């Protein structure tokens, strides 16, 4: 085992590289131990670099001192990916937040990893473009974090997830070398290592520069809010809309409890009596959008929709989205803690799995709240609880496992967009065989043979050589 206290020689070396941006204060270290999940660890040292060269030198120093390192963006991850285990050095990219170049000829922008997703889109607005992946955490999550978790978002239903919007990535590899994965050509030669890196959750190196693709803002947008007095009707309407051959830009669902907490925060006129609402957005050329709206209305009518509200202007549209995008945080209005799952199920099984989720929550005496990307079947069942209640965590875990089992049995997968991280690592065996996982381990080892980069994440055994960093989620990692 590596010693627990920050060793002075390493800190001295890091200070010689980045000065007082290498931190080891007691209180400050505690601030880089958590992300948006319920897990918590503790770094040995926190580094706040401002350039690729600094990241490279920090990685070099870590290697010389045989100390693992872990990249951190904005710390909004929901799978514990940025939670330090095994006493690593945290390399936080937040200060690397420059938009380096907007290249409209190639329709890309080169950005540093710490640029906030929404900041980029806001800056592009006057040019008529945006960055399509729009996680609900958009206002705060970093592009580096989006790349590392291959984030999705409401509008990824039509536009595709992060991987479709990244052309090239400059990476500091775990051995300290800098390389460029991918390029700006439409169909690069050789293996798609760029694609492999996206979603690797910091286990294959640190992204220090990213060429993101720019998407043109649609000429016409319509946002509809449909309310249903039975959540099953809402869920069935989702499949029916897609079955009509229509791919809305976004198709989101919220259940009764979600509507209540969200409305308490935004006052957007969400129907608090409804059992469920669908937030549907259509975009494109005016004619197509208009006929899309008709299709949605027709299908919704056939599924006993209550009220159909069409946002009158941009302000109303923004307010409705503000509600949806703040839903997770607003859950704290019911209980102070939540545990969020991220399974994907075939759309046709939505009703069945949703019913199971409610039943499971009842069984374990927990509150389930559902707010999710219905269009692609990406469920986000939230189990709300109060961590101060004795024994509640065991119930939360058991219920979580039951939900995952139900989703996988319905033909689904473990994670739609939040990644595996630490939290879902030990569930990988439910989806993959031993052989599958060994193969994945080999891929990881090709990038990081000695297991320095974000050890103990994603794969149950960690990278096979990283055992020395401690095998399990540390005791007390649950808060």
């Amino acid at each position: 085992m590596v010693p627990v206290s920050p060793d002075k020689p390493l800190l001295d070396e890091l200070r010689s590289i980045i000065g007082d941006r290498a931190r080891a204060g007691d209180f400050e270290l505690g601030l880089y131990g958590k992300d948006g999940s319920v897990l918590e660890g503790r770094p040995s040292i926190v580094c706040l670099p401002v350039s690729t060269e600094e990241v490279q030198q920090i990685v070099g120093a870590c290697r010389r001192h045989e100390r693992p390192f872990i990249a951190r963006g904005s710390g909004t991850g929901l799978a514990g990916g940025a939670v330090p285990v095994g006493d690593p050095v945290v390399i936080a990219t937040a200060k690397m937040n420059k938009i380096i170049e907007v290249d409209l000829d190639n329709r890309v922008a080169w950005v540093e990893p710490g640029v906030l997703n929404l900041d980029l889109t806001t800056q592009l607005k006057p040019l008529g473009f945006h960055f399509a992946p729009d996680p609900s955490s958009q206002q705060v999550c970093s592009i580096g974090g989006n790349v590392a978790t291959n984030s999705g978002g409401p509008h990824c239903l039509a536009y595709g997830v992060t991987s479709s919007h990244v052309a090239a990535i400059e990476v500091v590899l775990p051995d300290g070398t800098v390389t460029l994965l991918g390029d700006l050509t439409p169909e690069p030669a050789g293996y798609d290592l760029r694609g492999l890196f996206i979603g690797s959750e910091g286990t294959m190196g640190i992204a220090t520069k990213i060429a993101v693709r720019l998407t043109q803002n649609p000429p016409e947008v319509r946002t509809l809010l449909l309310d249903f007095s039975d959540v099953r009707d809402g869920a069935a309407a989702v499949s029916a809309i897609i079955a009509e051959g229509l791919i809305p830009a976004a198709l989101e669902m919220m259940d009764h409890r979600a509507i209540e907490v969200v409305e308490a925060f935004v006052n957007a006129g969400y129907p608090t009596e409804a059992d469920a609402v669908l937030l549907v957005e259509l975009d494109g050329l005016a004619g197509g959008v208009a006929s899309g709206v008709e299709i949605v209305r027709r299908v919704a009518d056939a599924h006993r929709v209550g009220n159909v509200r069409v946002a009158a202007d941009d302000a109303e549209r923004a307010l409705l989205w503000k509600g949806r995008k703040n839903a997770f945080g607003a859950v704290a209005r019911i209980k102070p803690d939540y545990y969020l799952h991220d399974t994907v199920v075939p759309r046709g099984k939505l009703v069945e799995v949703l019913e199971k989720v409610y039943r499971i929550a009842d069984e374990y005496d927990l509150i389930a709240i559902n707010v999710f990307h219905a269009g692609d079947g990406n469920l986000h069942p939230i189990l709300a609880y109060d961590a101060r209640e004795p024994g509640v965590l065991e119930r939360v875990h058991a219920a979580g496992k039951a939900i995952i089992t139900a989703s996988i049995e319905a033909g689904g997968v473990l994670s739609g967009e939040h990644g595996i991280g630490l939290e879902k690592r030990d569930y990988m065996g439910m989806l993959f065989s031993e052989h599958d996982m060994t193969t994945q381990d080999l891929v990881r080892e090709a990038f990081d043979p000695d297991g320095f980069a974000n050890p103990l994440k994603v794969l149950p055994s960690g990278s096979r050589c990283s055992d020395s960093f401690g095998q399990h989620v540390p005791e007390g990692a649950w808060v």
Partner: protein
Amino acid sequence: MKKVAVKLGIDSEDLASCVACGLCLPHCPTYRVTQEESASPRGRIALMRQAETTGLIDQEFVEFMDACVQCRGCETACPAGVPFGSMMETTREALAEQTRYQPLWRRWGYRILGCPKILTLGSKVLAVLQKLNLLPSKLALPKIPLLQGRLVPSGRDVWLFTGCVMDAWMRDTHRAVQRVIEAAGAGVRFPDKQAACCGALHVHAGLGHEARRLAERTMEAFPGQAPILVDSAGCGAQLKEYGRLLDSAAAHEFSQRVLDVHEWLVNHLDALPPAHADAPRIAIQDPCHLRHVQQSHDPVRVVLARYVEPVILDDEGLCCGAGGAYSMLHADTAAAVRERKIGSIERAQVQEVVSANPGCLLHLRAGGVTVRHPLEIVDDLMRKDT
């Protein structure tokens, strides 16, 4: 670092209510200019938790807490409804009472705010030094008037709260506000020296005892039932919080009578003279204590819209960095925060800017921005027409 024992005494429900989602980070001015977790609302709450669980703090902790502007932009942004402002006030009060967080010289500085005689005298000295060019320019003080004349009451319909620094340095603004209120058909009266200071800066500094003393004193200066109008967003926010601060029936009743002057004006707009033909483009800087604390920034827009073309800044109400005494105690951070605001103002391409809070006015002016109180512009334009 040396640790000392402290009990912050924050409500445990409040502490637990933050889910660490981070959605407040981009709305926090100090996070925006540092990108450091310790300068973010989420970080500060986590620090409070650490301090409460261990019962220990050190100098690092104190510095992190002191670097918060207390703008409460994080409260508006927080979907979980975390009451950050009161948690920070509790923290500061515990620090002030249990540690040497507020040294004696600072305590005296705050004290003077409640003593109009010393404040006026001091201001006169400053004004003279300023005239003689004897003040270092890096102090970035506004032009301080030497002689101001008295405010003359015109009736008993409404009170106008005058405050401490604002009354000593910006009495002309009060005069403009008075004229607008009178044009709207009401007679204005002024409190006596009892109401010299609302105590907002004291609360922010953790000097709760002093703040409560000033609150008691201020309340006595406003007998009767007439509405109490305030033309300083920071003071207005504080007066509206007397109910919570003193938790007495009288204090709650008092707070009910307090209105930001624009809140009162929206219901008296029709009485104002008609608008001039060509309305200038004016950007509105929402003071945090109007937007995030009083949640009453809309009335400013409604009142202004009668005379000008109001332009909303694109930074979603991010703080300008003034923060009462903050701009003096943390000049570098305050200036960096102001740079962002100036960027937003430049993008708005306007003739002039307004802000309904004296602290923001002074801080922005020191940064080279042409900015006035909204009602100074209204006063100008309505007189032009009559």
